[in-house]
């Protein structure tokens, strides 16, 4: 199993996609952090004031912006095998196909965690000096910030699982990536705005990730962090298991 995981890392690092998506993740994180700080205290903004602990947690949760790109990276990592037909030598080397999916789950979970740590670094680099100019001193060990940062790492890592799982289920690269982006940027934001569905929308992946990182918004409520983590991991694993049994085991012609 460790060989399979190391081979997945080798596949990932012998092409350049990981680098572009890492730079993209850092860029998104810096953008979200800047927006959160610049407009965080505007009247009418649903986020709590920056001086308050929930407001600070929201600022430090922006590293989860990496989650979308990690999910895309993971989805491409799986569906790319089918697109480039490397799935043939991959399954010839490892006929137990479930192990290949498992190795990818572990790999992209670890990659997600690593991206999250780097994006947290970017958040801290932007937020600490900027908030200091607003007279807000941040204690990174207090106000629930460590839990939020741990939540960011967990959320981004689990989005890696989600990408692998969805990729395994759909196999088709363009469909998986487009579906993922359309869902996360259009479908879920729209659905969560329907008040009568709010009992249900808390269980959607994006909302579950927000729960995990303790984002606070006055117009939306979330699950407990641990519930959010479980819900999110559940999606990843259900997709991966369903994908393994329904799609990955199909004939490779």
């Amino acid at each position: 199993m460790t060989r399979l995981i190391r081979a997945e890392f080798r596949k990932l690092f012998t092409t350049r996609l990981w680098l572009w998506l890492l730079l993209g993740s850092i860029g998104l994180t810096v953008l979200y952090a800047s927006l959160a700080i610049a407009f965080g205290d505007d009247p009418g903004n649903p986020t709590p004031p920056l001086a308050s602990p929930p407001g600070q947690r929201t600022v430090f949760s922006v590293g989860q912006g990496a989650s979308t790109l990690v999910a895309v990276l993971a989805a491409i990592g799986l569906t790319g095998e089918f697109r480039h037909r490397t799935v043939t030598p991959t399954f010839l080397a490892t006929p137990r196909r479930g192990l290949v999916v498992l190795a990818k789950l572990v790999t992209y979970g670890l990659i997600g965690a690593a991206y999250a740590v780097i994006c947290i670094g970017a958040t801290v680099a932007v937020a600490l000096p900027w908030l200091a100019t607003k007279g807000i001193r941040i204690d990174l060990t207090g106000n629930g910030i460590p839990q939020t940062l741990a939540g960011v790492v967990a959320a981004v890592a689990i989005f890696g699982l989600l990408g692998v799982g969805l990729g395994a289920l759909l196999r088709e690269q363009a469909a998986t990536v487009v579906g993922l982006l359309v869902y996360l940027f259009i479908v879920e934001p729209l659905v969560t705005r329907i008040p009568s569905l709010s009992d249900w929308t808390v269980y959607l992946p994006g909302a579950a990730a927000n729960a995990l990182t303790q984002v606070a918004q006055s117009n939306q409520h979330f699950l407990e962090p641990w519930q959010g983590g479980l819900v999110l991991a559940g999606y990843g694993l259900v997709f991966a298991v369903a994908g393994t049994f329904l799609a990955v085991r199909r004939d490779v012609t």
Partner: protein
Amino acid sequence: MVRTKRGERIAVSHLTKTFGRVRAVDDLTFTVEPGGIAGFLGPNGAGKTTTLRALLGLIHADAGSATFDGRPYRALRSPNNDVGAVLDAGTFHPARSGRNHLRVYCTVNGYPMRRADEVLDMVGLTHAARRAVHGYSLGMRQRLALATALLGDPGVLVLDEPANGLDPHGIAWLRDVLRELAERGRTILVSSHVLAELQQFVDHFVIVNEGRLIRQGTLEEIADAQGRAVMVRTPQLNEFLAAVRQHGGHADTTGPDSARVRRMTVDEVGQLAHREAIELRWLALEPVNLEEIFLALTEQPTGVPQEVR
């Protein structure tokens, strides 16, 4: 360069696979013994690729089995050590270099990284090792595919149309590589729809059509089973033709003093001529023409894969 290693015996038994309404492989049975090169021959759409992919555990057969020394591919503990396969020349990530492609499978199998460079050298790709595969020609991709198959120094090689895209030099090179591997005890099964590629270096033929076994054996065995014609030259052609017909044979004139006789052996023709006092100037078995046999064996009135009834 190649060490001696006895390969496993390939046994395909009553293999059947249906895609939708098309029966791609229909109750196919054949074996390939170690230390020889078996040619898997059939027209396009005969079920060759489906058979090889079922043999390698990539597709699930509906019935029957395909094994290496009795074990199905999926039961092999580290299959790359036992079986190397070239299924198509397009199984590479275009942005990855040939060397890194091989290193991925070194990592999966726990081989040392230098093994990638060794097989690149064996297939003559050292100069392109660090280039991305998207810049490779089809022939180079075939070589890289073969390098991938050779990575684990397997006892069995399964090659699907490995000569596609190779130039005449490449084909000659491939023939030499496979010859050497077979002499060192490997089991080699190589498919092709191009007869000329195979005729020169294959020991044993498995001919399929419409998913079914048509014939298997050496070229001579297959030709004999087809009934080979006898070639004759005689100054008394008309008398000879009449004698053959009387004897129940079938003769065609092939020249002013020559004929081709069917449904009679060389001995029978010789005895007949002797008895009838007909002078023969030449008497020989028709040379084996694989292409003719192949075309005769795989005649397809429609050319469309057969549908399940």
